[in-house]
């Protein structure tokens, strides 16, 4: 646990100094919102049903940008090589990087969400705890798979193109159910029907998190 924390803390410290990852994630996420805001101008009065989809598109795009940076920074100066030489399980590296990716993505989601409320003129105070739960589980599912695929993509020449191509088909169940769950929270009062999408997202996160943890050792080898 100390080692997972050390890896997370190191990523956080570097991010606090450079602000490379978070700035680009936030900027891209907000740009996506702006584009939707203008393109759906005519639906302004009845925009609420479209908001869950818009939100998760912005989350997924900005999250992919963050994942792309996750291992690219480790490649600089052969830092990944240094990390692989220390006597720790590769799984520890996986969890450390996944924790950092989750925190960065969650921070960017909060900011993007606030901009969504402003752009689309929404009031959601009562729904915030439910939304936070869905955002958290969705983000964990996204980063559980994304951390593994980012490690695969970083060793290829086309890493920035490759990551979304391999990531989105795999995380489709997470995105579909996250949109569904967000829609239930924002557009209905039937919170009991949240169980199904939230359960699917949780099972997906656990199953794919375990698979990614087990496979991580092999993707770092050459």
């Amino acid at each position, binding site marked *: 646990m100390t080692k997972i924390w*050390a890896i997370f803390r*190191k990523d956080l*410290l570097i991010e606090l100094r450079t602000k490379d990852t978070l700035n680009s994630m936030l900027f891209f996420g907000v740009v996506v919102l702006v584009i939707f805001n203008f393109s759906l101008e005519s639906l302004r009065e009845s925009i609420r049903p479209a908001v869950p989809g818009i939100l998760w598109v912005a989350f997924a795009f900005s999250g992919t940008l963050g994942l792309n940076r996750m291992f690219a920074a480790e490649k600089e100066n*052969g830092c990944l090589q*240094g990390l692989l*030489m220390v006597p720790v399980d590769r799984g520890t590296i996986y969890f450390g990087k996944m924790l950092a990716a989750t925190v960065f993505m969650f921070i960017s989601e909060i900011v993007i969400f606030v901009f969504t409320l402003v752009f689309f003129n929404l009031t959601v105070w009562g729904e915030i705890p439910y939304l936070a739960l869905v955002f958290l589980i969705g983000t964990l599912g996204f980063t559980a798979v994304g951390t593994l695929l980012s490690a695969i993509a970083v060793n290829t020449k086309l890493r920035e193109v490759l990551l979304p191509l391999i990531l989105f088909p795999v995380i489709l169940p997470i995105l579909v159910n996250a949109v569904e769950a967000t829609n239930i929270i924002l557009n209905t009062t039937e919170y009991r029907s949240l169980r199904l999408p939230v359960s699917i997202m949780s099972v997906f996160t656990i199953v794919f998190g375990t698979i990614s943890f087990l496979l991580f050792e092999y993707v770092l080898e050459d």
Partner: protein
Amino acid sequence: MIEVRGLAKYFGRFSALRGLDLSVGAGEFIALFGRNGAGKTTLLRIVAGLSHPSSGQVEIHPDRAVVPRYLRGCIGYLSHNTSLYMDLTAIENLRFYAQLMDLPVDDDVLMRRISQVGLSGREREPVRNYSRGMQQRLAIARAFLHDPDILLLDEPFTGLDQAGSAFLKNYLLSAHSRGKTCMMAIHDAALGYEMADRLVVIDKGAAALDVPKQSVSLAEFQEKFMSLTAD
């Protein structure tokens, strides 16, 4: 201490190593020579556990039953890649690696390590501000932070100025005199000859020459090396 048997490594159709055999005793200093692409780096990376062989075996401490993960704890690997985080300071880099290696994270000890490599007074500066030579000095402190038994060195003098080279040379000779086992890939035949006990020339993925230093003079070795690696 290190037994390499029938080691082969293929990258697609290209074979970097072809059935290489090498036995390294505890406390030996081996210099690996060979032209670019001969397989020196591949050999060192496989011994370090950074790459898996296509066939063949590497055994480290064959007499001890240890989990491969813990074997990494007795190896220090230094290459021209410094493995340092540029946006962290020297002390933060060492603190990070010390935490991962289960070493006591004591800033005084880490400061001493930094001062041993000649960087005292610059501990709290981001590595990005360091010159190439200073980065390589810090990389030495990082690679050998856990006082490993085996030092794997892949062209460690690359990019170092005269003072940096002299420092690294003394550092490695002192480590060797304390019983550390060293395997060093190097292009400078004279420097490699001066530092090592045993000279190994790798050509086309196999050991083309493996002689103790006492058995050849530098001039003889250079002549043999040239003839072996000439096209």
